């Protein structure tokens, strides 16, 4: 698989940059395109906004059946990430969770985006984030998992 498709949206994934529709306020993430997916404005006027790393779980599941490269149980959640300045709407983002006991998850729980190498595309590492409970509350780990970059496979 070519790595090029992962370089196009890299800024959004590396730095939680999102795009707010100036007509309806919808926050587009991770894609920036020229039309609004909610109000249909075409072309829409988008302004860049910065998302916070901490957001709220809207819903989730805990996956038990996945290919070997994924750790299981593997929770996945839809998370609303607010804008850093506290204004406007949150972006609705979904993603895998790590360092999380599935029994500890619930709708409304706070989680934090933690950056890591998610996988490799050809020879290139692809960096983005997984969600995890805020550090002081993390369950079943005492580790400093944030920012891990080495090793093999999915983490």
């Amino acid at each position: 698989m070519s790595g090029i498709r992962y370089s196009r949206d890299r800024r959004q994934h590396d730095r939680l940059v999102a795009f707010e529709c100036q007509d309806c306020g919808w926050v587009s993430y991770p894609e920036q395109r020229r039309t609004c997916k909610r109000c249909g404005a075409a072309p829409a006027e988008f302004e860049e906004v910065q998302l916070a790393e901490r957001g709220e779980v809207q819903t989730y599941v805990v996956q038990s059946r996945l290919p070997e490269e994924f750790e299981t149980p593997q929770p996945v959640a839809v998370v609303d990430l607010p804008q850093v300045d506290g204004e406007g709407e949150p972006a609705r983002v979904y993603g895998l969770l790590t360092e999380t006991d599935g029994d500890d998850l619930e709708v409304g729980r706070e989680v934090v985006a933690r950056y890591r190498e998610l996988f490799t595309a050809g020879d290139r590492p692809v960096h983005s984030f997984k969600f995890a409970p805020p550090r002081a509350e993390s369950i079943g780990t005492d580790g400093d998992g944030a920012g891990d970059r080495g090793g093999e496979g999915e983490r």
Partner: protein
Amino acid sequence: MTRDAYVLGRGMIDFGERYEDSFDDLLEEAYLALLDDVNVGSDEIDAAWYGTLDVADEGMSGAAVAHATGLFETPITQVVNACATGSDAVRNAVLAVESGQVDCALVIGAEKMRDTAEGLISLAAEKRVWRGRGVTMPAFFGMRATRHMEEYGTTREQIAEVSVKNHRHGSMYPHAHYKFECSVDDVLSSTTISEPLNLYDCCPVTDGAAAVLIGTEDLAREHAPELVRVAGTGLSSDSFVRGNDASLTHFPATRDASSRAYEASGYGPEDVDVAEVHDCFSITELVTYEDLGFCEVGDGGRFVAEGRADLDGEVAVNPSGGLLAKGHPIGATGVAQVAEIYEQLIGQAGDVQVDGVEVGLQHNIGVGRNATGSVSCVNVLERV
């Protein structure tokens, strides 16, 4: 000027693990079953719409149908629209007949789900870009279950009741893949797949094919035992990530597609006697009751638990056993559902026949676009 489209006949084959049969064999068998049901010559078929995702990578393009059926020198269009592929193929044939361009259209769908070496979970989890990576179909649908329980107090047992009902129906339906009955306890104690969904909340991996013939009123009067008109169709798309809170629990695409089909047909949810709906997972059917308007939003759990979706309920939902028992060979699924609604409307549904049916509805919801987008197709049929 438009005219009406009718179902002229259907060809159903047994769904299941068809290891001995190739993709072409399945197409050929469905086509022959159709010709066995309706006495038309191949030279009377003006065009064909062909539904397949081609999971097995051997059925690309209309040429696959030409080879399997002998319908050469015939316009054949492949339709691909996620899990709404088969129903959208029907819809396209209906539009062609209504437009006056085509008098007699074959719709045929097929999928060889069990021939993929990599496995479907692997395909779903590893081939997507970015955030869709590692997110499987049971997760995409299961997230609705979590939120529905949280928001509406739906119970895990109520969700299981969908599977119990559909397996009960499937045990009586001759073409179903799995013909066993199960209890709520069986569902709750089956292997965890994507919590809160267990194995018996998930449809099996199934090979299959199905065909229907769509044509003019004149042809229907000549060939069909009863006049079954396609009263309305609807197709729509939506996304998980548009910030629409309804999509956390429901499928706005189903709401829009069914609104279109209801409006075109002049019928509403209260008129529907029998429905074949998309139950790829138990929770999918539960929220679909609400999206189609069979009950109030939030009431799907009670709707199934109180037997209102049973064969003798308010709306008989999935008399065939649905995808949960019958199986879900993607390209064939929607075509088979239309064939089953047709069988209900002409009174030839055997052990799962529903009494007094006049209006039937067929529904699919599919997922695509990096596991965020959904697409729905709804077709409403009536006995004239």
